């Protein structure tokens, strides 16, 4: 098999970090080559170099036998390299046609846009590769799965034959993931070659022809799904033995802690985001909320933690009505909150670890006496938590902005778990974390459950919900479609529910 693309000895240094260290990879014609590694392993940096967004310090790129000097995305496009970025590069207020032709517009005489011709070309591509889209639709009205197709069409419109897909499945439902892989198969059959960047083991095992694992900016090895397995890949990724499945005992549900009764919550744009939702969470159990990003989970959590209020319905915590209580009151009743966006809502980044650790208890004894902060007590408290929760930092006075994502999350977990709580609301607790930190946080959550705390886990990662939950509620377009027992359900059932399909008979 001929190589269409070779990266030879690519090295990239950022101040203080060696992001890519002598990375060499080759991509063969017509293959799906998975690039597997944790967040921060250097995958995205490597691809940005290939796409001309960064300049490498060393190494060379060879496309179809010719050495290529990419200094801008334009050079990469001209060489037939196209990239679907993790965060889509689409203008929401433009139509599909406008987004696709942007930068390579079809023109009528006089410099006017030829939208019709571009739309025809899009329809041709769409038929050839089974990528159904509506050229006149606005991007903001399209679901992410379709937006991703638009991104792929963008590349094909420019005749790219080396496609880089950066974490393409992160935003998709399981069903959409299957569709994406069908599309990828079709592309490969027609002679395209694909580099597929991911950190999800299941996907590489199912869909890749070859797998290259990257850790700490270095290539650890290249293998094929035939000769490896998930556990081995995980160890290659992390560099030590990893327990993929968390061990937990059966839940012993106690009394009802949180009762949500027919609530309706609006989002910031006054649209209905949570639509007549009811459920309850009992002490000693984990209720998982599964669903694709943007189906009302964010607003639900905000309502439960007092950051917004429902326009309808009632929320009770341990028997007291908290429908219109503020966040402080809800916290004082024993709710802990691990927010979805840890940097924005969970921490004051420029503050030190010690200050972040008392962010919601600073006015209480022993941290404050007559409105004066007791610095010694606070520091002792911080030091003991840093040790207990294994926060890797030079000391407790370090600003949280300089910590890694995993350690930032540990600061939040330490803050929330170190006070007596009855209810834990954890929203995307492991988003963007490495496998080691995920393992740690999962263990802590289960530990809390076993201590009799009620846990509401909101996650878009199906594996996480399946592993941790005792019961799973699936949210779709603001509603809870079903609540299923985690022991008896299947990935397929949840996947269908996430796509809005309610199985017959339920």
């Amino acid at each position, binding site marked *: 098999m001929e190589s269409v693309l070779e990266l030879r000895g690519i090295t990239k240094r950022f101040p203080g970090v060696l992001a890519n260290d002598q990375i060499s990879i080759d991509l063969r014609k017509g293959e799906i080559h998975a690039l597997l590694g944790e967040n921060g392993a250097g995958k995205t940096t490597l691809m940005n170099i290939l796409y001309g967004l960064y300049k490498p310090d060393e190494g060379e790129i060879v496309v179809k036998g010719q050495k290529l000097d990419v200094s801008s995305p334009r050079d990469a496009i001209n060489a037939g390299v196209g990239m679907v970025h993790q965060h889509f*590069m689409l203008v*929401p207020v433009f139509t599909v046609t406008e987004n696709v032709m*942007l*930068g390579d517009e079809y023109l009528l005489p006089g410099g*006017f*846009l030829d939208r019709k011709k571009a739309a025809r070309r899009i329809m041709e591509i769409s038929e050839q590769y089974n990528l159904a889209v509506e050229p006149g639709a606005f991007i903001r009205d399209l*679901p992410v799965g379709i937006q991703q197709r638009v991104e792929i069409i963008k590349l094909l419109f420019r005749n790219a034959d080396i496609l880089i897909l950066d974490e393409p499945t992160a935003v998709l439902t399981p069903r959409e993931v299957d569709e994406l892989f069908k599309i990828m198969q079709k592309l490969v059959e027609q002679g395209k070659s694909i580099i597929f960047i991911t950190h999800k083991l299941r996907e590489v095992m199912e869909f890749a022809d070859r797998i290259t694992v990257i850790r700490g900016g270095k290539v650890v090895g290249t293998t094929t799904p035939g000769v490896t397995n998930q556990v081995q890949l995980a160890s290659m990724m992390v560099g030590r033995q990893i327990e993929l499945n968390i061990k937990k005992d059966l839940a012993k549900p106690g009394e009802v802690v949180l009762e949500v009764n027919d609530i309706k919550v609006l989002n910031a744009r006054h649209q209905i985001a949570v639509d007549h939702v009811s459920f309850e969470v009992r002490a000693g159990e984990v209720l998982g909320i599964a669903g694709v990003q943007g189906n009302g989970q964010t607003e639900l959590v905000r309502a439960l933690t007092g950051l917004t209020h429902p326009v309808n319905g009632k929320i009770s915590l341990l028997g007291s009505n908290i429908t219109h209580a503020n966040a402080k009151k809800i916290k004082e009743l024993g709710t802990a909150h691990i927010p979805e966006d840890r940097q924005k809502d969970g921490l004051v980044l420029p503050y030190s670890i010690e200050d972040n650790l008392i962010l919601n208890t600073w006015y209480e004894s022993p941290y404050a006496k007559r409105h004066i902060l007791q610095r010694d007590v606070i520091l002792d408290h911080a030091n003991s938590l840093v040790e207990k929760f294994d926060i890797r930092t030079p000391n407790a006075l370090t600003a949280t902005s300089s910590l890694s994502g995993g350690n930032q999350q540990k600061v939040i977990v330490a803050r929330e778990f170190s006070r007596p709580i009855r209810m834990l609301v954890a929203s995307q607790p492991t988003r963007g974390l490495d496998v080691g930190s995920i393992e740690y946080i999962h263990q802590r959550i289960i530990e809390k459950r076993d201590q009799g705390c009620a846990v509401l886990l909101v996650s878009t990662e199906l594996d996480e919900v399946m592993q941790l939950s005792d019961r799973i509620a699936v949210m779709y377009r603001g509603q809870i479609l079903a609540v299923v027992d985690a022991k008896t359900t299947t990935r397929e059932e949840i996947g269908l529910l996430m796509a809005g*399909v309610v199985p017959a008979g339920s």
Partner: protein
Amino acid sequence: MAQTTSTILRPADYISPTRRTVMGAVFLVMALCIWLIFSLSIVTDAKTTFVLVPGGSKVLIADLVFMSKPVLDILAFICAALGVYQLAKGFGRYTNTILGVVAAFFIVAFLTWGSSGTSLNLAGLLKVAVVRAVPLTLGAFSGIFCERAGVFNIAIEGMMLMAAFSSALFGSLVNPFFGLLTAVISGVLLAYVLAVLSIKYKVNQIISGTVINIFATGITSFLSAKFLQKYSALNDSGRFGTWDVPGLSQIPFIGPVFFSHNMFIYAMFIFTILLTILFFYTRWGLRTRAVGEHPKAADTLGINVIKTRYISVMLGGAMAGFAGAYFVLGSVGRFDEVMTAGRGFVGLAAMIFGNWNPIGALGAGMLFGFADSLASKLAILKVPIPNKFLEMAPYLVTMIVLAGVVGRGQPPAAGGQPYEKE
């Protein structure tokens, strides 16, 4: 079941109960005003006369004469009916439209009342409204150029003032056409400063704009006091003359109101069409809007974000320069200190009210221009409202409009954020 995986939430067309009630109350209050203040305060057989020929025009048409009281009563009744319906059921998504209708009725009622027993030159009022709209609309266009590419331009006011100064000076020294050219150039130069500060050095764009405004006010006032006031030959630029559009200007009422002006007024209409085509039907427009909405996406497709922004900002400067020249060459023919008097900021408001869209900006400019024109007209009528209050009218309208009576627009998403390539 092709694509059920949508994550879009149903739009609720949500009008909160409070807003519904408040709007209903507003309609009723307006109805009450029309009835109690306007209708009851005039004598039963008073007549209102609207003159439909502006002063000096030769295109004649008969005056519109009608009984004041019945008209006012009917307007009051309709407004009250709309108010009751709004309170009872609500107009939902049409609430803002109905608000516009009620406001229009209120203005008609106000004019009817103000001119009962006497006459009001409606054509003159509208003609002046069109003229007053010019600097506001052109200022808004300047803002559209910059903001569509993602750069806030607070400095329209300063650019207009500088341009007005140079058009007066060079118009006096050479001729009005050269004055216009220097006005545009001075706008571009100030825009270049804004571009360098906010694109290259990533200075906060509100601050860089404010700095330019302060600079323009200072230097023009100083130079004006030092030279223009002393040597009157330096401050006598002359003006562009009125040109009647052949044919169109002969249409009764419409002709004199819209088609008998100097070139700045026609330029406003032509630019409205040109900008619409430029922004929405050409490659340049598509790329510029992409840069203002999602610069990174544009960058990954090989579009030069920085260059696009520089060009747009400088075009915006040229437009502000053109608008500034109007104050001198299209209006009074001389420069006075701080003669722009906040029009650049009202232009910015017109841009926002017009939803960053040339046609919308023209509409908003016209509305503000009308408020302005009305204020000066009413000062002449014997309306028992103090003069100074009437002069506040345009600004009051601006504030009410901006305070969100009309729903929020959709600004370019990347507005005000310097682009960093990581």
